[in-house]
């Protein structure tokens, strides 16, 4: 009889060791969240002047140069030309002029060697391009129109704008 009593008492004592309320125990873990953000970058380098050389006033000429564009890999961009400092919006003409502005010769810049796609306000700009993180080279093709009666040195400056 005594032995039975002792066993029951031991069992009850063991039961009392179980936590009275559920979820008294906890464990924790930690999650780190990180991000590094950077701005896209772009650079433009023009190889050299678009030089037509010496051209008789009644003749035409062609010339070519190139420029390098470097844009962040995978980043979209477009390239626009402004038509030059002497651009005549009314007539959609790009003009090289001399210092006094007396002589002018019209020229046209193209995206292609076939000179079909005018680059700039008189035509279209290049859009939908995508950077690679490395240099992408674009050729710029120029055509000089005849301008009877003009003499002397003429020049213009065209601005290339890369939008990204």
């Amino acid at each position: 009889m005594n032995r039975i009593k002792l066993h029951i008492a031991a069992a009850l004592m063991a039961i009392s060791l179980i936590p009275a309320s559920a979820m008294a125990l906890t464990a924790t873990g930690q999650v780190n969240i990180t991000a590094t953000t950077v701005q896209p970058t772009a650079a433009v380098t023009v190889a050299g002047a678009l030089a037509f050389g010496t051209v008789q006033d009644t003749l035409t000429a062609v010339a070519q140069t190139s420029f390098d564009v470097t844009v962040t890999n995978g980043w979209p961009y477009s390239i626009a030309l402004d038509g030059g400092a002497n651009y005549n919006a009314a007539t959609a003409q790009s003009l090289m002029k001399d210092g006094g502005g007396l002589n002018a010769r019209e020229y046209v810049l193209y995206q292609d060697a076939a000179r079909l796609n005018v680059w700039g306000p008189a035509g279209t700009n290049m859009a939908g391009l995508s950077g690679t993180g490395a240099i992408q080279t674009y050729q710029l093709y120029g055509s000089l129109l005849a301008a009877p009666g003009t003499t002397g040195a003429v020049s213009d400056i065209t601005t290339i704008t890369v939008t990204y």
Partner: protein
Amino acid sequence: MKKLRLYTVAALAMLGVVPSLAFAATQTATVDVNLVAIAPAGSITVNGPIDFGTVIVADSTLTAGTTFDVTVSNNVPYTITFDAGLHISATSGNLRNMMSTTGALGYYMTGLGTSTWDIGVPVNGTGTGIADSFPINANVTFGAGLTPGSYSDTITITLAY
């Protein structure tokens, strides 16, 4: 002497204290009641960080994620609760923030099904004795005006069981 003993037994029987079979024979039996009382066990393991890597600033939303494993004794109920991280946002519900030296980058979390691991809201489960895996995803909108830098946060997950 014999006569005297009979009287004594009769007297005790009248008091009702002594069992009727007392002294006639003795049999003993033991009943073993065994109970192994153990505390329920629980553990949580986070399987790596949520790392967006290097992101070019733009008006885009990206998602990155990881998982964590919860192991709780079989049939033991448990809850999983996410805290607000290190940089609590007082202004917007469950928006958490990563911080850089110059600013904050907000993010929202998503998890299994409809769970968004809301701040301080327990998610209930029942242990199986083996690891239950849960996803954690963070959604970040990298706005164009975001200051470039390294952003980070740390969330603590509490498993109660």
